[in-house]
């Protein structure tokens, strides 16, 4: 099954035009919990409030502001913010190409696969060319009313575009050309190099696995027979909603285990 594309655009590299579709490359695998009201097991909802008066605020009436000093903020009108939006465009413009490794990894933020949108030959030619030149393309594009900068590269024959953080979002550590090496003697360096070589092996991402989710799910299954809290939409719910649903899900869980 093909994943749903989140955006369509055209990569422009010199005279080459490559129509592409964007697909999210990373899936959120974190374990998420819902917060429930302890007395009735209702999932809580969120409400915007005026922090000064503690009164609820309508979403539509919320405005945006930017601090200009410790104490003062400047509010914007929606049309002022709209005027700053980049003009709509479907072009992913490659402005520079950099040898692989020249972009500090701290800049990489969110990865997308780019898939071909029609012209297969141009798509795979671009991927092949980036691979042959061991290059990443610096790309600029507009998506969801925002301007993005990204790094276009090749992986396993396909195009990957990773959004980049802006310069000021990454702490600059280049001011620290440390002179540490002067105090290190050749013998120590040789030993360290040997140690690094001894521990050297190919990187296999699949070798690393976080089993927190599995442990939580196991915990949930163990508890399921005892402490299931069923939720129904508030309007239909009665004061004692849980029992029937709890029995049902316990049964389900038992059946699943014996299946």
């Amino acid at each position: 099954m093909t994943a749903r594309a989140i955006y369509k655009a055209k990569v422009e590299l010199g005279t080459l035009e490559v129509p592409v579709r964007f697909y999210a490359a990373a899936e959120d695998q974190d374990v998420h919990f819902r917060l429930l009201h302890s007395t009735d097991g209702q999932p809580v909802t969120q409400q915007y409030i005026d922090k000064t008066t503690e009164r609820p605020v309508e979403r539509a009436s919320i405005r945006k502001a930017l601090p200009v000093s410790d104490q003062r903020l400047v509010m914007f009108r929606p049309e002022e913010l709209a005027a700053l939006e980049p003009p709509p465009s479907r072009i992913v413009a490659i402005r520079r190409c950099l040898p692989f490794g020249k972009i500090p990894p701290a800049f990489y933020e969110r990865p997308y696969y780019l898939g071909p949108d029609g012209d297969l030959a141009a798509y795979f030619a671009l991927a092949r060319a980036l691979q042959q030149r061991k290059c990443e393309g610096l790309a600029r594009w507009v998506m969801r009313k925002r301007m993005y900068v990204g790094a276009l590269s090749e992986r396993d024959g396909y195009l990957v575009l990773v959004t980049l953080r802006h310069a000021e979002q990454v702490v600059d550590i280049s001011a620290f050309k440390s002179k540490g090496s002067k105090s290190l003697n050749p013998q120590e360096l040789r030993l360290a190099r040997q140690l690094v070589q001894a521990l050297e092996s190919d990187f296999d991402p699949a070798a690393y696995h976080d089993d927190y989710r599995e442990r939580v799910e196991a915990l949930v299954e163990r508890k399921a027979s005892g402490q299931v809290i069923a939720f129904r939409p508030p309007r239909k719910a009665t004061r004692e909603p849980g029992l029937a649903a709890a029995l049902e899900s316990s049964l389900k869980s038992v059946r699943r285990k014996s299946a």
Partner: protein
Amino acid sequence: MSARKKRRAEEKRPEPAEDESSGERSASRSFWSGTITFGLVSIPVDFHAAHRPRRASLRMVTDDGHPVGKRYICPRHERPIADDEVVRGFEREPGEFVVLTDEELEAAAPEKTRDIDLLQFVPRSSLPSLLFRRAYVLAPAGGSTKAYHLLAETMERTDRAGIATFVMRDKAYVVAILAAGGVLRAETLRFSGELRTPASVGLPEPVRVPAEILREALQAIDALVEDELDLEELRDEASEALSELAQTKAQRGEDIVVGEAETEDEVPPVAPIDLVALLKQRLEHAGLISDQHAAKAQRPPRRDVEEPELAKKAKNELYERAKTLGIQGRSRMSKRDLVVALKKATG
């Protein structure tokens, strides 16, 4: 506050998952320490966030300029609920929750340890860009910094990255440890289970590439190749335009409101993370950088300083007094405006 409680508080804070501002805010000091271990070598390090928020982070305010927050309400009871009335549920089936207590989750959490187990070294170039998630600067800690510098130097010379696993705040991580300029960084990596593959996305099989198109692509790349990354390319023009507009309006005295005092969970206006100074201090301490470097590294905090006497007064207090006196337009006044108006009103 216990770690568990703190984590719960963090979970409750409404923030997008990948938002920069959700990172470690108190970055002027280290927020976690651990020990890189490999073979018989132990290298104590302090973690510092390597990211900071965008310069122009918009905040939500009401028409009156009051800050907007969020609170939890129970839809059935139709009332706000306090923190201790909230429990965590895992959604087992849609609409069906299993409540998990702090103790139970504690038991499921990975074993607490301060060890950063460096398991292997890999060629730096074997780490694909889509793995990188978030960066931390590792500053040498403890008495001797020799092992730190030895590792950094060796990794740089051999162009190798270390792969390590560790547990921080009840969460397991895999990181790439990289060295540049004698400084070690840890870059958290996505677990492979978090990444889709071309096959799982459903991308079509590669096709044969006509030679002339490949040539065109190669030529286009060659025409654009640069040796080094120019940070100008990564300028945040949107933030700059927004800040400029804010400054212009501030000078005209347009739409200005008095902000609330900074609370714990808010981003400081210009986010002056003084990691540089801190690192400098450490390195200087270790005799690793000269004063010349130190002077260069020191950046004055960018911050508009209001009159100190005024800044001492709580602006809430001023606002309340203005309210009592019925001063018009008080909600849009700066603190200074409030003081002037109050003086006028009270003669």
